[in-house]
């Protein structure tokens, strides 16, 4: 753990140094992601501290999706939630707000209730995997905060989601 934190810090410093050469890496076209700065693509997943909310968001995955007008958890959603449960049990100083969202194909009030149902389905699943219910709170946004703003099924599918928002306990 300590090693990982040090490594992360060093790489962060390297990143900052690279930024001072912004022209070279950003603008001359030759540099880019794979240029002399090296291995940018590998940095994120390889060096994130697993105990951070960033790791939770990017590697565990904070979002799952739902079928039209449904709050049931698909097998792939369950496997993401298994990871969320494991992370929450390993990092007991964090609490979670679970947001439920709906796509725009529904009335405002119904979508608020549907978002609440989705958030509760996630919460109940996490409780079933051992996460204390007292560490979680559910929140519905209905159709008020879409992730994607187009009006096609491709976007709707992204908007029918729950997002698990992690924060340090005592800080809300």
């Amino acid at each position, binding site marked *: 753990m300590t090693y990982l934190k040090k490594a992360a810090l060093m790489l962060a410093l390297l990143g900052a140094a690279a930024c001072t050469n912004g022209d070279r890496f950003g603008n001359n076209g030759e540099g880019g992601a794979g240029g002399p700065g090296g291995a940018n693509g590998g940095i994120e997943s390889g060096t994130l501290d697993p105990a951070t909310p960033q790791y939770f968001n990017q590697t565990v995955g904070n979002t799952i999706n739902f079928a039209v007008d449904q709050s049931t958890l698909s097998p792939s959603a369950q496997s993401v939630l298994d990871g969320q449960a494991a992370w929450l049990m390993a990092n007991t100083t964090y609490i979670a707000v679970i947001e439920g969202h709906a796509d725009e194909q*529904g009335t405002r*009030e*119904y979508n608020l209730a*549907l978002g609440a149902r989705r958030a509760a*389905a996630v919460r109940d699943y996490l409780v079933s995997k051992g996460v204390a219910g007292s560490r979680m*709170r559910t929140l*519905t946004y209905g159709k008020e905060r*879409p992730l*994607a703003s187009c009006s096609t099924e491709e976007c709707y599918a992204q908007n029918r989601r729950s997002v698990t928002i992690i924060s340090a306990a005592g800080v809300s």
Partner: protein
Amino acid sequence: MRFILSLIMTLFLFIPVASAAEPLKLRLDNPLVEPMPFATPDFQPETAAANEYAVRIARVVASDLTGTGLFREIPPQAYISNVSSFASPVQYSDWRAVNAQALITGAVSVDAGGRLVVKFRLFDIFSGAEMGDGLQFAGSTDAWRRMAHKVSDAVYQRITGESGYFDSRVVFVSETGPKENRAKRLAIMDYDGANIQYLTDSSSIVLAPRFSPTGDRVLYTGYETGFPRIYLLDVSNVGRRALAMPEGTMSFAPRFAPDGRTVVFSLTTGGNTDIYRMDLNSGSLSRLTNSPAIETAPSFSPDGSQIVFESDRSGTQQLYIMSANGGEPQRISFEDGRYGTPVWSPRGDLIAFTKQAGGRFHIGVMNVDGSRERLLTSNFLDEGPTWSPNGRVIMFTRETQGVNGAPSLYSVDISGRNLRSIRTDNAASDPSWGPLQP
């Protein structure tokens, strides 16, 4: 040429119509009614300070009446005689010649105290008689539009036999910014979109405001705490308070009872949404539905004895009616599709609703027993009907699709005719139409 034509029309129209005329009457239940032609010459300014109001007030009256789709204005260029004084006799033959059936004349003055005084008279041209007595309204000059609306309400009432809806306001949500992060504020405006004022800032999401029966207070759902809960706002001073709810719950979809003291709404605990009522004075809470289904969007009958709401207890969203104290509800919607946001009409005769069917949204009305369903609109996304104070017109939200899609307000007659857009500065949603003002 124009003179000769006018003369001929006068001769032609004068004799048969004058003898056969019946008192001016527009029947709102007749679906084939033709718009009634009327004339509203500029009102007469009786003091110099009243000049600008005299013209503007006549224009607002004309706009109110034509906006109903029930009246058609005779363009002032067609007038033969002009009204030179409020008291002078009306030349009925001149107005018959341009086919005006109703003539509205008025006078405006500013009195010594700075108050605006508006008088008007209504004439039934074909009967050759004045309809009702002249009326006078007085108020501050700022309220000139309200006085114009009061003239329109009186004219509408005398001709149709039903109360009007012009001197009324609408509370709604004003929207700015991108679809993924819309900024929303509560706003209030005249029924026709004039005089917009903001009631909240845009620091947190606000949804679905609902007027109290007297229009002095507004219930809405707000995210000030980060979680949706119901607020009560005083329109006169924009003071607000959150209604006390059980810890860890979310609450939304509030609506006043006709007594103005009781609120019915949705409360979510553990992911399950049911309908509750609260007494505003005591804060006492009672649960009206108890099922694992989504039950929301409750609306009282005008006598306060029943509540219409939506539930997906059958598997899809449908409309139900129950006693105002809860108990076994009766399903009233049975056609194909999903039904939501039912609202009981102020006359008590109809339920307006949002329907999703065939990949489109509709605003519709049905009888209270579910019979005679009629869809009034069809669009990508129409939702959230609200009734005019006289139960003749429905206002609702229409949202356009796509990345730049945005909502705006529309109104439609319960006949399905006269679909109109209400112009607002920004995108607008969730209208709630208040009562006629005193």
